[in-house]
C-alpha cells in the first residue's frame, strides 16, 4: 500500500473541538452529551421539515466536535424555542437553551449566518424594545422589510392586518425609555 504523505494524513484526521462543546455546556447550563440519539426531538420538532440536520443532528455535530457545521447551520436559527423537543427528550436536555448558546456564539465569532433574515428580524424586535420598551409590530415589520430589501411580498397580508386594525399605527410605550436603554448595557448604572 502506498504511504500517505504526512500532509495528507494531517488533513484526513479530524480533530474534534472539545473546548467548543464545553463552551456550549457552560452557556446553556445543560449537558447535551447525555443525548442518546433516540430522535424523539426530531420527530416532534415542528420546523424539522425546514432544517438541515434537525435537533438530534445538531447535538451529534456537537458530540463529534463539528463546530463550523453546527454554527453555520440554518437549524439554529429556525428553532423557535417551542420546547416540544425537550418535552419529549427522555434525557431532559434543554435543547432550546443549547440553541440559544449556539446562536450567540455564532454571532460573537462572526461566522457565516445561514438565515440572515431571521437574525435581522431579532435585531428589529430588540431595536423596537430599545425605543419603546415594548414591541411595535407595524414598525418591526416595516423596518424588517426595508432591511431585507423586500418591498412586495406579504403586501396583501399587511394591508389586511391594517384594515382590520390589527396593527396599531402608534407604539404602546413605557414612560421612561431611559430605564430600558440601561438594560442594554451590562453595567448597573
Amino acid at each position, binding site marked *: 500500500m502506498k504511504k500517505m504523505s504526512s500532509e495528507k494524513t494531517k488533513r484526513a484526521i479530524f480533530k474534534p473541538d472539545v473546548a467548543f462543546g464545553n463552551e456550549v455546556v457552560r452557556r446553556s447550563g445543560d449537558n447535551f452529551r447525555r443525548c442518546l440519539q433516540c430522535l424523539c426531538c426530531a420527530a416532534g420538532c415542528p420546523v424539522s421539515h425546514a432544517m438541515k440536520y434537525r435537533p438530534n443532528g445538531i447535538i451529534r455535530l456537537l458530540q463529534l466536535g463539528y463546530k463550523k457545521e453546527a454554527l453555520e447551520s440554518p437549524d439554529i436559527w429556525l428553532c423557535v424555542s417551542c420546547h416540544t423537543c425537550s418535552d419529549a427528550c427522555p434525557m431532559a436536555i434543554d435543547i432550546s437553551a443549547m440553541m440559544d448558546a449556539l446562536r450567540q456564539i455564532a454571532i460573537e465569532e462572526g461566522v457565516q449566518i445561514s438565515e440572515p433574515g431571521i437574525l435581522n428580524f431579532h435585531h428589529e424586535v430588540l431595536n423596537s*424594545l430599545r425605543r419603546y420598551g415594548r414591541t411595535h409590530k407595524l414598525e418591526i415589520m416595516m423596518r424588517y422589510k426595508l432591511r431585507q430589501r423586500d418591498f412586495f411580498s406579504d403586501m396583501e397580508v399587511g394591508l389586511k392586518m391594517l384594515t382590520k386594525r390589527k396593527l396599531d399605527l402608534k407604539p*404602546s410605550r413605557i414612560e421612561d425609555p431611559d430605564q430600558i436603554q440601561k438594560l442594554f448595557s451590562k453595567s448597573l448604572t
Partner: protein
Amino acid sequence: MPDQQELTDISYFPGCSLATSAKESNQALVRVCRNLGYRLVELKDWNCCGSSSAHSIDSDLAFRLTSRTLSLAPEGMPLLVACPSCMLNLRQTQIRLETDAAASDDFGQRWQRPVDGNLKILHLFELLDKESDQFPDAALSGLRFVPYYGCMLAGPPSLRNEKSYYGLMQKILKRCGAEPLPWNESAKCCGTFLSVSSPEVVEPMVNRIVQSAVDSGADCIVTACAMCHLNLEIRCTLDTKVPIFHFSELLALAFKFDVDRSWFSRHLIDPVPMLKKKGLWP
C-alpha cells in the same frame, strides 16, 4: 356580577400582543375575570418580556428585561399573566432569581429592592380553573370546537414540574354546553416569529393545523395564545377556513356580555356568520 367592593385585586401583566394586536382578547379576559370576582390592575409601566428575540441572541438582556418587570410587581398579590410565552420567560427568570445568587444580587442592586420570594406568578388558566364552577351552563350549546394549546403545554426541563393546563379549555367550554372534538394538532407549534421572517416555513405548519380542524368538523378553533390566533389567521392559504377565537372571547360570549362587535370585526376570518347560524350571536 359581583359588587365593586367584593372584587379581589390582582396585578396583571398583559404583554405586547394582548396590549396591541389582540386587544379584543384582552378586553374579553379583563371582563371575564371581573365577572369571576377579580379586578385586574395593570402592572404600572411594564415592559416587553423580550419575546423570542431577546433570549435567542442576548440571554443577559432577556434576563434583565424580565427582571425589571418582576421588580415592578406590588407585594402581597399574585401577578396574573395570560400569554404563554411571557409566562415562560417570567417564570424562568423567577426560578433563576431563586436559585442563582449572582442573579439575585444583580436584581437587588439594579432595582433597589430584594427579590420577592413570595410573588406568585399566576397563569390565567389557573385562575379560570379555580373558578370553573362559576361558568354558565348551556350558554354555548351547539358549538363544536377543537382546543388549540400550541406550545403552551411544553416547557424547558427547569419547568417540568409546573402545572399543566391541558384539558382546561375542554372542561370549561363543555360546562358551557359546547362540544370538544378530537383532533391531532392541539399541541403543535404555530410557527411564532417565523411567520414574519420565513412565511414559506410557517404556511405548511398552519395549513396542517387548520386542515385538521376542518376535517374534524369543528365550527371553530379555540386558542390559548394571541400569537397563535394571529398566525393561524394570516398564514392559512387553504380555501376552506374555520373561525378562530381566543379562549377569553368565547367565555365572554358564554357570559352573554353585550359583546362589542368591534372585537370580531378585528378577526381576519369573520366568525359572526357562524355564531349567528348557531344562535350564539347576542
